[in-house]
């Protein structure tokens, strides 16, 4: 006899819908995934807890190899810079560096992290709006590739190079309207109004700076290939004109990233398979345009252009899964079904704009219905998914949310909940390792200092005793933070 307790569903009245197929022929979810690359989901949960981020090493390697070969088969000189902000877990970065990726960083922290990972400075592309004097100086001395974003940064860099008497090659970031994507005019120098040309002159007239690269980033999740064609044309035209005007020699063009992953944008009418171009399609249009636009360079005695790509999302998004468990079931007052799961927008920031693929981990029982998935936060906006067709689930049942590799870990918040463990499924089967431990109380409080007069005499926590001992002489409250609010 089957001893398993049957699922009890609260009696309810539900309007019948004729037929269960929608126009995409998606019926009731029947399929489920109870293992990730051969590891049982339940085993993973029992060992590492829930929620749990799971990285697939093989998928990540496969993605980056595919991207690099898609470009390298179409253009000889290609550099791929891993965009640290997308996901700077050390394991992720090192897998990509092992596959030959450089590092694309946008802040002091990211620069320092890349150096800590062992990336040679000359393999770091230093972008971003906020490069302070300290880190800029380090980047100059170590020989990183600096991409100028604004005029003030130029003056700062100019003064640093004058102090250090070091000649450096720089790239400048451009912004322009491709006609097919939203112009991001807040980054870099505008091409249309002459700001960029002006900047090229300024660099040409500076003592130690030499303009050798152009960079632009036309957007994120760009679905229209024509945008890249236009981008490449505009950048090459600009390159030809500044080479003519200022006698500089450009040797690399950085086209940023923005390639779409196979996630589904909220409000998107078609499925990702139908709208998101394949990596090869991006590569084809970009490389073709570049080859056509630069075909006379060798004859003109100019260096061949190195193409730099900084795609982040398309590489890492589908290499991560998030395993989450059902905390409670709730029927909303309008009759809709809803679930509360233990992963919310604190660790799944991208659920604000994506409809991630969500999979069951057990065979579905009962009738599927439109369900809202809420996260565990005490916030109204903590909605993981507004509409998904799910069968009734028990408390403790788990779900797999896929394509969560980009931005979620780096943008996760230390809000209300402890952040979860991150594990990696090794390429060699059956090997799993913890690559980031989840937060605990110590992590949450270790940067805090408690002024003496705020101490509670019978503090029970040993860690806070340590804290007091260590910093008993500190009188200034460096970080104001409330330890607990009950």
């Amino acid at each position, binding site marked *: 006899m089957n001893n398993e307790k049957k699922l009890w569903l609260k009696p309810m009245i539900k309007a019948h819908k004729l037929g269960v197929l929608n126009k995409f022929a998606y019926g009731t979810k029947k399929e489920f995934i109870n293992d990730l690359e051969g590891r049982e989901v339940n085993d993973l949960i029992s060992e590492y807890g829930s929620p749990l981020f799971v990285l697939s090493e093989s998928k990540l390697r496969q993605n980056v190899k595919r991207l690099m070969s898609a470009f*390298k088969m179409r253009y000889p000189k290609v550099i791929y810079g891993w965009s640290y902000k997308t996901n700077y877990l050390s394991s992720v970065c090192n897998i990509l560096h092992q596959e030959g990726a450089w590092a694309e960083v946008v802040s002091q922290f990211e620069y320092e992290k890349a150096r800590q990972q062992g990336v040679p400075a000359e393999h770091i592309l230093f972008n971003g709006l906020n490069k302070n004097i300290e880190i800029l100086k380090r980047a100059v001395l170590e020989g990183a590739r600096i991409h100028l974003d604004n005029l003030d940064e130029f003056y700062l860099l100019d003064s640093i190079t004058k102090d250090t008497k070091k000649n450096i090659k720089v790239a400048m970031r451009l912004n322009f309207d491709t006609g097919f994507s939203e112009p991001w005019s807040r980054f870099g120098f505008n091409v249309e109004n002459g700001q960029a040309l002006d900047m090229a002159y300024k660099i040409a007239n500076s003592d130690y700076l030499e303009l050798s690269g152009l960079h632009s980033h036309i957007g994120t999740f760009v679905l229209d290939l024509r945008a890249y064609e236009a981008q490449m044309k505009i950048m090459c035209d600009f390159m030809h004109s500044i080479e003519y005007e200022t006698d500089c020699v450009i040797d690399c063009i950085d086209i940023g990233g923005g390639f779409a992953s196979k996630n589904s944008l909220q409000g998107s009418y078609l499925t990702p398979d139908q709208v998101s171009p394949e990596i090869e399609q991006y590569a084809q249009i970009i490389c073709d345009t570049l080859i056509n636009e630069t075909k006379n360079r060798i004859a003109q005695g100019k260096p061949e252009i190195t193409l730099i790509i900084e795609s982040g999302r398309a590489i890492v998004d589908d290499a991560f899964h998030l395993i989450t468990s059902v905390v409670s079931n709730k029927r909303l007052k309008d009759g809709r079904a809803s679930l509360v799961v233990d992963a919310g927008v604190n660790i799944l920031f991208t659920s604000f704009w994506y409809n991630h693929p969500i999979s069951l981990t057990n065979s579905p029982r009962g009738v599927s219905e439109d369900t809202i998935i809420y996260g565990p936060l005490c916030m109204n906006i903590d909605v993981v998914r507004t509409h998904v067709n799910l069968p009734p689930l028990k408390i403790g049942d788990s779900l797999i949310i896929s394509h969560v590799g980009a931005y979620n870990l780096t943008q996760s918040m230390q809000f209300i909940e402890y952040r979860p463990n991150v594990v990696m499924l090794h390429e060699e089967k059956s090997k799993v390792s913890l690559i980031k431990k989840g937060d605990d109380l110590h992590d949450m409080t270790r940067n805090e200092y408690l002024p003496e007069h705020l101490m509670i005499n019978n503090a029970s926590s040993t860690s806070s005793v340590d804290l007091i001992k260590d910093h008993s002489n500190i009188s200034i409250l460096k970080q104001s933070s409330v330890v607990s609010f009950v």
Partner: protein
Amino acid sequence: MDKIIFDYKADVLKKIKQISQWKKQGVGLYQLSADLLPFKRILIAYSTILFCRNEKTGFLFFMATFVFPNAAFSGLLAAIIGSLTSRLFNFPNQSGELHIYNSLLVGLSLGIVYHFDFHLLSLIVLGFILSVLVTVTLSDVFWRLEHLPVLSFPFVIVALGCAFAAQGYGSLSHYLYPLAPYDYFINTEIDAFLTAMGSTFFIPDPRAGLLIFIGVVMTSRYLGLLAVCGYIVGHSLFQWLSGSPHNDLFLWSGFNFILTAMAIGGVFTVPGIRSFVLAMIGASLASLLTASIQSMMIIYGVPVLALPFLLTTLTVLMALKKRQSFSAPYLLLENPELPEVNYENSRLLSARGGAPGSIPLSVPFLDKWQVYQGFCGKYTHQYPWQYALDFIVVDNERSFSNDGKQLGDYYCYGLPVVSPCYGTVYKFDDSHHDNLPGEVDIKNNWGNYLLIQLNSGHFVLLAHLKKGSIKVFSGEHIVPGQVLAQCGNSGRSPQPHIHMHVQADQYLGSRTLPFHLFGVNCSKSDNRSTQFYLSIIPSEKDTVSMILNDSIAQTFHLPIGLSMNFNVTINDQQAIEQQLKVELDLLGQFKLSGKNGSCASFVEETGLQAFFDRNKKEDKLLDIWLLALGLNPTGNEVVNWQDKPAASLFPLSVKDKFLFNVFHPLGGGIESQYRRIKIDRGWLQQGKHTLQISPTKKKTVITEAVLELKTGCVSLLMHADDVRIEAKLIQKHSKADFGIPELVYHYQ
């Protein structure tokens, strides 16, 4: 486009050509040897008669002529007058002092027949001057004709002329007594051989012959071997046909077999089994010609001289030159050397640059593709189209995604096809449609194609391109890596692929020629690890990827005037400071030189630095450098590669050296496997070198070199069972020049 290919072989050939051009014109070498003492040049001329070209051997030969002083003085006088004549009228100084040696031979030949007096003197002087003029003229004519060496042809013409003239001059009737064979020296057979040897210098005396033979063996054991074998073959045949030993004729003409065997088997071809056989055939032919020419000449009462040798050698060489395809024996008309040197050069060249005659090409694609059909492939690569390669892109053992029913499903469809060479677009056609997968168009077999003419005159065909994808025009000069078209599926092509072959003429579908891929990474289908190959003919299912130059190139770069001081420790003894210097010689050859005049040449090309031509002077540090850093590919992603450096670099005990020489009379190569690993400071380049000393004995040494990005090599290490040598960089400095101060960089 980056020049991703470099053509080591073509470069070496070009250099050799250039040098021989200079030699021919007397430029360069004239200046080089201007500082040689005239007597030294005369000694070299003596040695050149037996292809040895060094003054010590020349001195031995010179001494040998004094067995018969009349001839010796006449010869010496001839040499001096020849040398003076060429100086006086500023004739180009031929390589090997050709004109001196020809007039020297005239002198010797007259000196052996006529008594040395004032009458003879006038004839001699005129003869010598004439022989210089004939040499200068003929050597140029021969070179233009077939790049043939003039050898002693001028001597034969002048000597015959003089002999006829002498018959008409009564004043020259002071004939010497015919030389009686020296009675008994060692034994009859050996005496006969040594006499033949001596008669090269017109001294038919076994004592002189012995001295000469010693000189030859000292310079080159292989030449000595050829001399003996050539003599035995020629002599036996002669005796067999004539029925009786014909001492008189032998006395004067036996050297013809010897010289023919030496020239054909060791000097003008690369030593090997085929060239040895040919040398022996040459010796037999020379013996036939000796008899026939003798029969003709006897009517006029003149000797055969070196005519059989000249006719046989020149005929054989010219005939070899007429071959359409390259095969053994390989001719070395442009830069003949001693057989050992010839062998070493050709061994290294074929180890690094592929088979002789094979045309080096780069890959016609970017990144990594797989060989769909190799040479002599089972589908269509059969005679006369057997030398062809087809490439496709494969992922997970499939060439397409989805169901493969659309052309667009194929990974390689529409990918760029790039130029595999420098050349000119000869003609093209891109008007044919692309077949659906599985279909073929046999009317237009090659489909859309691009025919490129190489600078060597050969043609490269790239076929089955995508309709309308060709981006170049006829007559356009193209460079390796330049995008030419897109991969398609036109013509006889059931799935999209690139077909590449080399053909001799411009007609579509004409006979294909052998070629190889140059400087690529290749992983063999049966072996997962990727290895860098300077030259490779990949077989079916091998994965080939192109190499781009990397920042490591600047690490290896050795600029002119650089010197590096190393602290060298041998087996934990006291460290000794030693220096390596980079020099550039007059002919434009970069050299790395150590102590005692030791040096090795090197070339730096896009993608590679390679050392070769180590001279004989001893220097341990230089040897370790050459073992550890003898061949350095500077492309990215190059991790493993092989080389076969000269065995002389290997540290061997005296006993092992002897054993090795016994089993490898011509020298040989070390099997070196290299590996480069990225380390904190830069790179670690490890080499494992194995030398087969005898069929049963093998030795292995390990070398390690640490390279830092900006400094270059900072430490070298070599260890074997019994020896461990370590060298650490102390300082680098660049030589000062007028206006440029010396720069010194202390390491650590």
